[in-house]
């Protein structure tokens, strides 16, 4: 209320930063947006784990060790050889968790890129042109959104056959509905701004207005949503693998590791804990980053 009284510029955009030493600015920024940096840190560690898995894993993730199981066939707990214990087939859980990061990141990121391209395209065109174009595209979006993603992906993967690429493709091609709706809403809002009309009054073409004027102005929410979307898609992949129609064993994925842990958790709870914990931390990382980006992009939080 009171803030209306002052000239507060509405949109963020790049502010001319005051000249302060970089490190000092960095720590102030960390203090202001702790979630953002925590999320970014988690994601960096995740990427390192995925890339360096072959180097840092103590064992081959698919080797079944005879000393991984006790004589009665129960997986051994955390030890010097198996830092996070062994699974129901005597494989090293730490190595499998590290390799699992590859699958999660690959599926999460690439399927989100597909979601992003389809969603932004459909949303921008529908929002900008309106009329029957909007109507047709939004009904298609409604149809896509009527199928719960996991079930729909289940059906599609069942048809195509379970494999890493089919899982990735199914999530990518089916999961763009929300993105399209959000982008459309943003385009509708930005389209009404006078600077868009000014661009038209100057004689700019539709393509120029859409891509040079409108798109840069909605990039913030799109980045936020994409980041959160990576976490969601990682969960969908894990769900599919948990149900046995995602990544097929022996390739390690956190989802199929939890499914395997389901059989042994009563006697060897670590078979359940560690893949699940890895999954939670990964998804939390993207959620933290997404929320943090939302805060930093919110003009109310960045005063000039």
């Amino acid at each position, binding site marked *: 209320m009171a803030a209306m009284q002052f*000239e507060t*510029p*509405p*949109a*963020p*955009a*790049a*502010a*001319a930063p005051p000249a302060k030493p970089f490190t000092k600015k960095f720590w102030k920024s960390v203090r202001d947006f702790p979630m953002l940096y925590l999320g970014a840190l988690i994601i960096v560690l995740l990427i390192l784990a995925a890339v360096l898995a072959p180097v840092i894993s103590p064992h081959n993730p698919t080797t079944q060790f005879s000393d991984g199981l006790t004589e009665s066939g129960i997986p051994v707990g955390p030890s010097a050889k198996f830092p996070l214990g062994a699974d129901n087939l005597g494989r090293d859980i730490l190595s499998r968790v590290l390799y699992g990061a590859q699958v999660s990141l690959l599926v999460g990121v690439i399927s989100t890129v597909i979601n992003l391209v389809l969603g932004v395209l459909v949303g921008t065109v529908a929002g900008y042109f309106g009329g029957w174009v909007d109507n047709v595209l939004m009904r298609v979006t409604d149809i896509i959104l009527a199928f719960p993603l996991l079930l729909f992906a289940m059906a599609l993967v069942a048809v195509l056959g379970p494999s890493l690429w089919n899982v990735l493709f199914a999530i990518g091609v089916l999961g763009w509905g929300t993105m399209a709706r959000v982008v459309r809403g943003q385009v509708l809002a930005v389209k009404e*701004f*006078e*600077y868009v*009309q*000014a*661009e*038209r*009054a*100057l*004689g*700019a*073409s539709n393509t*120029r207005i859409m891509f040079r*004027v409108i798109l*840069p*102005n909605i990039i913030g929410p799109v980045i936020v949503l994409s980041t959160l979307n990576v976490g969601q898609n990682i969960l969908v992949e894990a769900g599919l693998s948990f149900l046995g129609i995602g990544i097929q064993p022996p390739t390690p994925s956190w989802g199929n590791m939890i499914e395997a842990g389901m059989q042994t958790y009563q006697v060897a709870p670590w078979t359940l804990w560690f893949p699940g914990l890895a999954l939670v931390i990964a998804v939390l990382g993207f959620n933290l980053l997404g929320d943090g980006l939302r805060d930093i992009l919110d003009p109310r939080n960045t005063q*000039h």
Partner: protein
Amino acid sequence: MAEALLQVEDLKKYFPIRRGVFQRTVGHVRAVDGISFTVQKGETLGVVGESGCGKSTMGRSILRLIEPTSGVVNFEGRNIVRLRKGQMQAMRRQMQLVFQDPYASLNPRFSIAQTLMEPMIIHNLYGSREERLDRVRRLLERVGLDADYARRYPHEFSGGQRQRIGIARALAVDPKLIILDEPVAALDVSVQSQVLNLLEDLQEELGLTYIFIAHDLSVVRHISDRILVLYLGRMMELVEAEELFADPLHPYTQALLSAVPVPDPDAKRERIILQGDLPSPANPPSGCPFHTRCPVAKPVCRERAPQWKEIKPKHYVACHAYA
């Protein structure tokens, strides 16, 4: 001097009202309902009216930012309503628009240099980047801003400064006609007059023609040569600025003038307080649209729309009282 730059004939813009399951058109908002006027080169035509009178829609229809429903808009003798898309985009160099809201009319992602170069890029003016930047600097100085501001972004400026940038953007393509849509309404009183003076200077120097749309009567009186009064999409009165205030003929104009609060506590004026609300342009009254609130309405006003007539030399009114 007495050469017509713009000639508008019977301009109409109806927006369909869609209702029901299949969004059938059940009626029209008659935002602009038959407006005709001529603007001479170098002249300022003021357009006043309250909300819903269609003044903004009229401005945008003339520029074809909104496609007019019907009518003719002759710009230097050429009917631009008939132009194809590509021709129209080229034609936009000649006619520009300045907006009301200085906060919404500048792209927050563009620096001032980008904002002002955008029109030059679109119309392929001034070959090199250096030439364009040079032009940007001259434009900024022309509107009274520091040339070094080119590198900054809109949020670093106050409302008045932004409005100057908006004017510079319009000038970047060397237009002949500028439609100013409430250019000072969002500005503080002490800044308003700076912008008004700037507009007057630019007109004199560059030989610009203005259509000045506003709701503030004293501002319109100050800047206009002639004034057109609109009510619910129709023309009520058109006359030279000083005469409109000295001798308003239409009852609506009279009420409008008497409603303006004057900054003089001793001004004893006869107040005409109109009864009732402004009718909706979606459902305008029959006959003369003003008859529902008119203090001197007669039965005929409800039945027939009055003729547009020259009551006195160069003083046009649409009112049955002068029939």
